[in-house]
Every structure is written in C-alpha cells, then in structure tokens.
C-alpha cells in the first residue's frame, strides 16, 4: 500500500517539472540573450530532475515486481537479493569478496583505487528463486534489475569469496571505463582489474582467426592494420575488399579492445586511473588510452603487440608436467592391476 502511494506521488511529482519547464520556456522567447541563457540552464536542470524522477519510477516498478527481501552493504557496496534472502554462509562470502577486492585494488593500483567501488549497487538473483535448492545457480546483475544487460554468468552455490572478488574487480573496471563515454562504448564490459593471464592469448587468437585480413595483419604485427581495426570510426577499413564479411560485422570482438585497455593500465599505472576522466582530446579510443597512459599511440600499440606475441603457443602444446601426471597415473593403475593373481 505504502509502495503504491509512493509510486503515485512520484508520478504526480514527475508532472511538476514539466509544467515548470513550460512556464519558464514561454517568457524565454521574450527575454534578452543573457536571461535566455539562464532560463536555458534552468530548463536543463529541470530536465535532469525529470530524468531522476523517471529513474525513481523505474526503480519502484522493479522493486514492486521483485520484492526486495534482503540486502547487504559492505564498504559502500550495496548488494541486493531481490525476492529471496540468502544464508549466512553466502552472505559471508559476498562480504569477504568485496573486502578482498577493495584491498587488492588499493595494494596493486595505488591507495584510493578502491573508491571506484563506492556506491556500487548490484543484485544476486536465483533463477529458480531457491538458493538452498539442489543444483541451483546464482546470477549477478548490475543495479536492481536482474534482467539488466550486464547480467554476469552463472555461479554455483555456495558462493566463494574469490568469485565475488573477481566480479568486483570487473565491476571496478566497468566503473572506470564509464568515466569516459568513448571508452565505455569501445570496451564495454571487457575491461577488468583482474589478472587474466589468458587475456593476451585469447586476444591474439581472436585476431588471428578473424574473418578480417586487416585484423590478421594486426596479429602479425602490422601497426597500421592494428590502428585501423581498433578505430571505431574507420569501419570502412576494418575489412579488405577481398574479405567475405557479413554486413555490420565487427572485425574484432570487445575482448581485443579490453586487452588493449588493460595494456594501457599496465603501462600508465596509477596515472592512467586519474587521466581517464580528463576531457578527451580525440574521438579515437587508442589515442585516449595512450594519452591516459602517458605514451604515444604507437608506443601503446607496440607494447600491446609485444604482449600479444609473448602470450605464445604454450596453450596448445602439452607440458612436461602434463605428460608426467599422465605417466604417474598410468603407473599407479598398473601397480593396482598387479595386486591380484588369478588362482
């Protein structure tokens, strides 16, 4: 009842800015240039207010659809459990994961980096609405809405602190990129503070197997090809005329962009974290990343390319330890086989 009343009030309130904007807009046509500019600012402020009211309405709608039964606030991070309450064990894992992620960010990337997580809000949902049921899995989503675009995989239960830490490091990466609209679009959710040894290998493989010969040339070390394939404004250069690509096909997936951004972070260090919020001097993500890292675009590309080449092909070849383990188990089973002699 109370919720319905709040929604009604919010709806009424949403009309007020509209009326006020209309009233202010009418005399604006008669006012001089200076007062018109002021009125324009007010209209913009009112438009922001309208957006906030709309956001409130949306949040209320989601809350009504999925009653919020439980939540957790740890070091400025809010975790919601819409429609369900989780047990102490999972709750502790969430708490530990958040604390570990904050510590990891501050220790590895400089004090204060963990502030990226301040005010973060995400939800843990259970598709079958029963966290203690057998074979149940959990899904993480950005914000309140479990159907959000940023829904993040399935996690087995009980949750582990390590999984939560990894998720929080990805969230921190996402929030950092959101500070720059161009990079946010360029990288999406593919940037994380998490150490991922396979990221360079995967990026190299994606480039080498791309349908775009330009991307393949990039993988082979051609800097001009890399620059073309990593530039969202150079769509016409992503594919060579001889390539057979579907219309609107991407030359490289976002994971490749993520590995470039990660290289920029490794090159720039704490400076990168500060500089990324500065106004852009270019529309090209590579230039923005290089500037934030304090190097030239070519230097960043060279560092990235060198990282890709170092990722090597060791993933394909079985290691000596792998072979040793196979021989060990074979010997173990052979020993067992000799234990019984037929009579």
């Amino acid at each position: 009842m109370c919720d319905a009343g709040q929604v009604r009030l919010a709806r009424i309130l949403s009309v007020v800015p509209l009326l006020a904007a209309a009233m202010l807009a009418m005399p604006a046509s008669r006012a001089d240039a200076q007062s018109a500019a002021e009125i324009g600012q007010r209209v913009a402020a009112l438009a922001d207010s309208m957006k906030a009211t709309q956001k409130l309405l949306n949040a209320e709608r989601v809350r009504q659809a999925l009653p919020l039964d439980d939540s957790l606030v740890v070091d400025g991070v809010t975790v919601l459990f819409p429609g369900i309450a989780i047990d102490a064990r999972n709750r502790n894992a969430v708490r530990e994961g958040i604390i570990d992620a904050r510590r990891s960010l501050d220790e590895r990337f400089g004090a204060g980096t963990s502030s990226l997580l301040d005010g973060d809000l995400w939800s843990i949902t259970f598709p079958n609405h029963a966290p203690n049921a057998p074979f149940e899995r959990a899904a993480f989503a950005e914000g309140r809405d479990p159907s959000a675009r940023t829904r993040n995989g399935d996690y087995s239960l009980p949750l582990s602190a390590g999984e939560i830490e990894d998720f929080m490091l990805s969230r921190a990466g996402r929030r950092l990129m959101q500070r720059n609209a161009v990079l946010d679009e360029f990288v999406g959710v593919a940037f994380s503070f998490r150490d991922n040894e396979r990221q360079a290998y995967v990026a190299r493989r994606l480039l080498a197997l791309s349908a775009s010969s330009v991307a393949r040339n990039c993988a082979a070390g051609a800097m001009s090809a890399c620059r073309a394939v990593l530039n969202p404004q150079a769509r016409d250069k992503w594919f060579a005329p001889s390539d057979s690509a579907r219309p609107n096909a991407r030359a490289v997936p976002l994971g490749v962009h993520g590995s470039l951004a990660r290289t920029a972070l490794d090159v720039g260090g704490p400076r990168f974290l500060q500089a990324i919020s500065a106004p852009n001097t270019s529309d090209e993500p590579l230039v923005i990343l290089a500037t934030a890292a304090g190097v030239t675009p070519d230097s960043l590309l060279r560092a990235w390319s060198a990282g890709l080449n170092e990722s090597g092909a060791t993933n394909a070849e079985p290691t000596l330890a792998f072979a040793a383990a196979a021989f060990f188990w074979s010997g173990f089973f052979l020993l067992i086989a000799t234990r019984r002699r037929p009579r």
Partner: protein
Amino acid sequence: MFRTILRTHWMWTRTLVAGISLVVFLMPAAAWRLGGGRTILVGRSVADGMQALGPMLAFLALLGAFVLAVYPWTVDAETKHVYPLSLPITWTRYVGMRFLAGALTLVVPAVALYLGGRLAVSMIVLPPLLHSYAGALAVRWLLAAFVAYSMSFALQYLAGRRATVVALLIVLGIVGLFAGLELAGARDVGDAIGRFLFEFPGPLGVFSERGVLIDV
C-alpha cells in the same frame, strides 16, 4: 617373450586398432567439414570444427582404450589363465608386459590422428600467425588414451569377470555421491572431489585439457 606377447596382442586387437585409427584419421577432415569448410583461407573452420569434435576424440580415447584392455584378458580368461601362469616368470612381470604391449598398440591410432591432422591442415592456407599443432594434438590424445587404458586395465585385472558390473557400480557410485552431496547441501565437497578427479594433475585431468589442431 615380450615380442611374442606383443605379436599375439597385435593379432587379437588389430581390427579394432585399425577401426579406431581410421576414425581418428578422418576426424580432422570431418572437423573442417563440420566447421563449414567455408573459410579455406583462414582455417577458422578447422578450429571451430575441432572444438565441436574435441569431446568425440576424448570419447574415442576412453572407449578404444577400454576395449584394448579388456579383450586380451578375456582371451586369457577363456583358458583360465593357464598360459600366463605356466610361464617361467612372475605374474607381476607378465601383467607388466601385457600392459606395455597394449599401450604400444595405442601409438598406431595416435600416429593416424597426427597424419589426419597434417592432411586437414594441408588443405587450407594458414595465415602467418596460425600454426598447426597436429603433433601436440596426437600426443595429448595418446596420453589420454594411455590413462584410460591403464584405468580399464587395472579394473579388468582386479575385478576379473565382474569388471563390467564393477565399472557400472563405480560410475553409479560417483554419480550417487555427487547427487547426495548436492542434496545434502555440501556442494563444495562435491566440487573439491570433482576438481581432484578432473583437473590437472588429477587422474582424469588429461581429458579436461583442450586439444587444438590450429592455434596461434
């Protein structure tokens, strides 16, 4: 004596070994077709196809190795193991030689897989950064088959005629154990057991490792 055991082992199992060899030889070419065979220039079709057929290769390693371990024992059992027990060597030594003979025959399908991989790769033009790992794939398969063979061998020589029943009981026991732990809310214990069994360096870790024919 080992040469005799190897020769008899080969005579008993050669049809089976030839069958497995033929299937694994054709597997990379089938992968190319399964991947669409469309992008003859970039080799993505082989990479995609091998990803899809990877579990089939692991299954062949399991099944082939199981039959290779079981068949010679069955032949010996028909004569109540009179021949091996009459030999002037210990039982342990005889079992070791029998094991080695079977393990050596597994090299034949592994070589066939290597040749099939080389053939499939020769049909496409690889871009500069991509390489063929036909040899690495064959070695991975051989190691997996080797472990599967030794497990089947141990099961057969321990359980004798009841090996099939014991194998089924083991499978059912493992499934029941995981289901029971899940129902009891002890999923983390089940996860730990699963990790021990299926992750490197566990006994079945060789089956979890991804085998690729084409990679950077």
